């Protein structure tokens, strides 16, 4: 409730007479909607690597994130709002991650925690590491660090809350008329292939063929 007082829930367009102050609030639907959503984000337990340990420490006794409403960490994607990608995303794991993202119901958010999830991290040069999870799914907040300390993770979650505050019911993607397309699941061939990039592959193969035919 202290959030409400600080955020000044009252919309400034209307003046409330002094005898009713404290009993009547005039606000916008957006503010109530956003306040409800940002105060009870349920993260999905998606700890991959070392950053997962810092996530567990953030959920534990010293830096409790139950104070932010995120106490309920659900392993099932069907009941979660936030996918906290913590740790290196490898090519073997990315089809599973995309499938889990597709299974999460809207509204959903993704936070890339740590250098590895943001951009591949120190393992970027390897053959089994994806150079950042935003190649496949849309990311809302990036938290750099290796690993980010629990206080940095909490700052990142507060940044996400601020982002939610700026959303409006009229423009959010889950209330639009068109259905939201699921992201196609990557295929594990000789190297992982995003089906959205299959045409690039064909173009390159064709260019090589014409080069060979000419040369």
């Amino acid at each position, binding site marked *: 409730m202290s959030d409400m007082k600080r955020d000044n829930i009252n919309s400034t367009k209307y003046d409330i007479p002094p005898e009713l102050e404290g009993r009547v609030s005039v606000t916008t639907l957006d503010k109530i909607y956003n306040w409800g959503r940002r105060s009870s984000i349920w993260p999905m337990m998606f700890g991959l690597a070392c950053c997962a340990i810092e996530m567990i420490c953030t959920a534990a006794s010293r830096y409790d994130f139950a104070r932010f409403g995120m106490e309920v960490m659900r*392993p099932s994607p069907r009941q979660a709002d936030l996918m906290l990608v913590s740790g290196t995303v490898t090519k073997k794991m990315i089809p599973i991650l995309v499938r889990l993202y597709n299974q999460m119901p809207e509204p959903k958010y993704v936070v890339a925690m740590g250098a590895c999830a943001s951009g591949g991290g120190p*393992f970027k040069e390897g053959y*089994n590491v994806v*150079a950042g999870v935003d190649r496949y799914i849309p990311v809302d907040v990036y938290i750099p660090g290796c690993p980010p300390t629990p206080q940095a993770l909490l700052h990142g979650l507060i940044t996400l809350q601020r982002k939610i505050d700026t959303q409006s019911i009229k423009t959010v993607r889950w209330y639009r008329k068109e259905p939201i397309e699921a992201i196609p699941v990557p295929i594990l061939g000789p190297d992982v292939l995003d089906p959205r990039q299959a045409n690039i592959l064909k173009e390159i193969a064709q260019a090589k063929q014409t080069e060979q035919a000419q040369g």
Partner: protein
Amino acid sequence: MSEQTVAPVLERSIENELVTRFPECVSLDTRKGYSGVLVKPENLIEVATALRDDLGYDYLVSVTGTDYLPEGMMETVYHIYKATGGPGLVFKAQFPRDHAVVPSLVPVFPGADLQERETWDLLGIRFEGHPDLRRILLWEGFEGHPLRKDWREPFFEEEAKPFKSRWPEGHIQRAEDKNPFSNNVAYPPDFDPDSWVEDKDSMLYESLKRSIKQQGSDIQTDIVMVNMGPQHPSTHGVFRMVVALSGETIVSLKPVMGYLHRNHEKIAERNTYLQIMPYTDRLDYLSSMSNNFGYALAVEKLTGARPPERAEYLRVIMAEFTRICNHLFAIGSLLNDLGAYFTPILYAIEERELILDVFEAVAGSRMMCNYFRFGGVARDLPEGILEQIRKIAFDRLPPKIDELDLYLTNNEIIRSRTEGVGVLTPEQAIAYSAAGPVLRASGVPYDIRRADPYSIYDRFDFDVVVHYHGDAYDRYLVRIEEMRQSVRIIQQAVKDLPGGPIQEGKPQYQVRVPAGEAYGRVEGPKGELGFYVVANGKPNPWRYHVRAPSFINLTPYELMCVGNKVADTVAILGSIDIVLGEVDR
């Protein structure tokens, strides 16, 4: 110091004995800086059986391979020790690169199972006679064998760091911008995405069906296959198990790994020796100091550096604190998996946070400490930290460990869920190369700090903790008691901590490492952590391999689970205490 002059003579005697016994197929390895014997591949099983049965070397610790591209040959390297303690033996088999086939040691030492699959996966060495040779860390259908020296990754820049593009003409360009797919991928020229049929684990399910038939079934019941997949609240990370159930009883189980394979070994072949140190932190990310310790020991064996006294004491204090941190977290997450939802792990994390404060003040980071250097440690203790360490070791930890003991050990629910579950007999533990608390809970008193002492552990007075039932409850008891022994060691080390320098010589970023090979092993909290380094005089290593205890402790996992209920898999996995950074590297 006298041990150092006596030990080589003893080692040479076991090698000489092998050479006299098998004169036509065993010879000494005479390359400069190398040790051990070379065995002809066709006689490998004969020699291994003789080592195990007649000469008492029954504990096979590490199986790996090396690619010698300039000489056109590859070799498999085996490290073997005695379960009663003492120095070990290294033997290798060499064969040409284009015909990389070698007999499998699984009939003699079942513990070589997963390690041979990894060597097939990453190096392409085929093991004849292996019961189930599939890829383990990468997926079926992956192109090529990555650790071969002529295989290049998609983001390849140069053979060795430092890269010339960073200085002096450092025009920044993100690696993904150079790749047409903006990602870390590259495809062979004949790949057609429309006609590619995805494998979808067909070989895995076939091998599962084969092992079910071997168990035998008298009643005609339906076998249900359950995937306890990478996304699971109790699997300690991204670990997948495929379980074949008859009712609720497990008939067969196959672990699937590789979801966190971060190509640590390939990156290390491109790094210089000092640059590998922060990467070793990320192997077993719960206990980073002991990873650093093992790697520093391996390279110090090659360079011959000896850390000063103060540095040795600091190393021991940090390593024992790490052991306590790790066991606290292991016990907490075991209880979390058993169903005592979050309370025990909260109590354990509270103590762990106080120790992590010490790490943060000394090394700079809570988890990725990067504290050890070759010939010492990076920094000295700041002011006031020794007082904090003293308070933690003398005043805070002993009563808290007793409180945790009182809270959990005699709890009837825990006892009924873990007693008799996941039993591993001592003979099985040694044959399957189990290490650490898993080995000691089965009755084998093998602790590297006593069996093959390194650093200054021979000066401290502590007990090796052993229990004899070999079930999950005993592994939990071993961890509680090991925490008490670690506190005892820290108390002695803090009392005797001398003054003096903390690093031998000036800090250098280019370490000169002479050619040769070395295997440095430490008793990590999860088991024996070994680093096998092959150097050829250049600034970066030729081959670098990590003997990961969690990976090898998973070899008897199927054996431990068969016959138990499916709910017990989680308890057994929690009691083995794996961490995926180490399993997959």
